[in-house]
């Protein structure tokens, strides 16, 4: 195999690996991109008698380097149920479904809506659905009348689903927590989630045999309320200072967005290399 073929194959291999195994810090490292550029220049010089191959190698390397240096870092988009979040890398909007059994996030672009599963490629990004644990809370007053829950600092003001994006450590356990308000009762509530395994490791919670939510009530000035702390196992209610709180622990998807080399450019580059190889072979055969 000629040097040109080996160099071309290495560049192609590099981009294929970036697409199939994305989300590696190395792709954003300066030295890696310099190496890809150097490899590509060497390949282009070596294939100068086959301009289409040289062009294809250049296009692929360009897409690789553009993604590595200019593409955004991998991020996780966490949306509240029944909300939409614009994702520019994907060229569309993620529509988060209702918190129900087997919820699937949809990528909406124009009139089309595609489900995000284990892997959904767009032109410049890979989208992956990743499950997270969230807590839906029902709140009612002492007479059982339903009360509004608001999340002034959450991703959706009027969502009763807590996305639990913060973490605090209690007794050596890293526990997700979230806050919500019950304006009609002038209460601010902190909800701390213990998974079933974490609850089992705490003697006072072990009897629940399920995830447990610890509620800590404050008034709307932030002052603690006597007897305002209590725990409720998943699906069961607790009444604290006139408020009845019932948590439901749910699995709900978030979407991980990873930038990849532009698939249209890579496709064009591979096509150019393929045609270039065919033309070169025909010329050699003559």
């Amino acid at each position, binding site marked *: 195999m000629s040097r040109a073929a080996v160099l071309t194959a290495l560049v192609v291999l590099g981009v294929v690996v970036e697409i199939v195994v994305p989300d590696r810090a190395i792709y954003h490292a300066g030295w890696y991109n310099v190496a890809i550029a150097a490899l590509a220049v060497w390949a282009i010089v070596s294939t100068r008698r086959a301009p289409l191959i040289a062009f294809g190698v250049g296009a692929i390397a*360009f*897409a690789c380097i553009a993604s590595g240096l200019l593409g955004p870092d991998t991020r996780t988009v966490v949306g509240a*149920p029944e*909300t939409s979040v614009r994702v520019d890398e994907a060229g569309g909007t993620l529509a988060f479904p209702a918190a129900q059994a087997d919820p699937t996030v949809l990528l909406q672009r124009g009139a089309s809506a595609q489900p995000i599963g284990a892997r959904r490629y767009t032109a410049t990004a890979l989208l992956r659905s990743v499950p997270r644990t969230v807590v839906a809370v029902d709140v009612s007053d002492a007479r059982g009348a*339903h*009360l509004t829950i608001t999340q002034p600092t959450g991703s959706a*003001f*009027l969502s009763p689903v807590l996305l639990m994006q913060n973490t605090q450590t209690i007794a050596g356990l890293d526990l997700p927590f979230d806050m919500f308000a019950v304006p009609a009762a002038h209460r601010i509530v902190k909800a701390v989630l213990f998974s079933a395994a974490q609850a089992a490791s705490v003697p006072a919670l072990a009897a629940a045999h399920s995830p447990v939510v610890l509620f800590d009530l404050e008034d709307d000035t932030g002052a603690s309320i006597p007897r305002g702390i209590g725990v409720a196992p998943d699906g069961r209610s607790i009444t604290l200072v006139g408020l009845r709180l019932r948590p439901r622990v749910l699995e709900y998807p978030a979407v991980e967005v990873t930038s990849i080399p532009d698939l249209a*450019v890579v496709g064009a*580059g591979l096509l150019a290399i393929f045609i270039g190889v065919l033309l070169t072979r025909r010329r050699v055969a003559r």
Partner: protein
Amino acid sequence: MNARLRWLLILGAVAIALLILVPLFGSQRPSVSGPAGMVGQTAPVFTLHDDRGNPVSLAQYRGKVVVMNLWASWCPPCRAEMPDLQTVAREYARDGVVVVGVNQGESAERAAAFAHSLDIAFPIWIDDGQQYGRTYAALGLPTTIVIDRRGVVERGFDGPLTIEQMRSTLAQVVRAT
């Protein structure tokens, strides 16, 4: 390399550069957050119940201009805004405008008592799951959405409106559709 092939390569390179750069820079348009971000979209519709327990839906108002006001009894600006909504509901009824108050997260009894205390005559719907608030990206209460006769969101407002703002908005929407 002949001249034609060279030009083809140059054009190809430019096209590829554009393919890379347009998604990276061209899509950085400012996104509008809150209810105003819904403008131009078909209004999502859910079946709810009114304060008397009857099933209701925005679909029943297709062909009319709908002013959907999201509110709650604990919200002082909502209380302040209600009489003005009542006034415009009367003024624009002949133009096919309907005002609907969608209570967010409270019981039908509480919502009905609140509406009764203010002599509100327009329909009061109960959204105890706060679906409309989430879907229309409410940033607070009150939130007001104006939906045109085709069922498309025309305006989205975060916070209370003055009666002048209501009249001006409705005059434009009624005239446009």
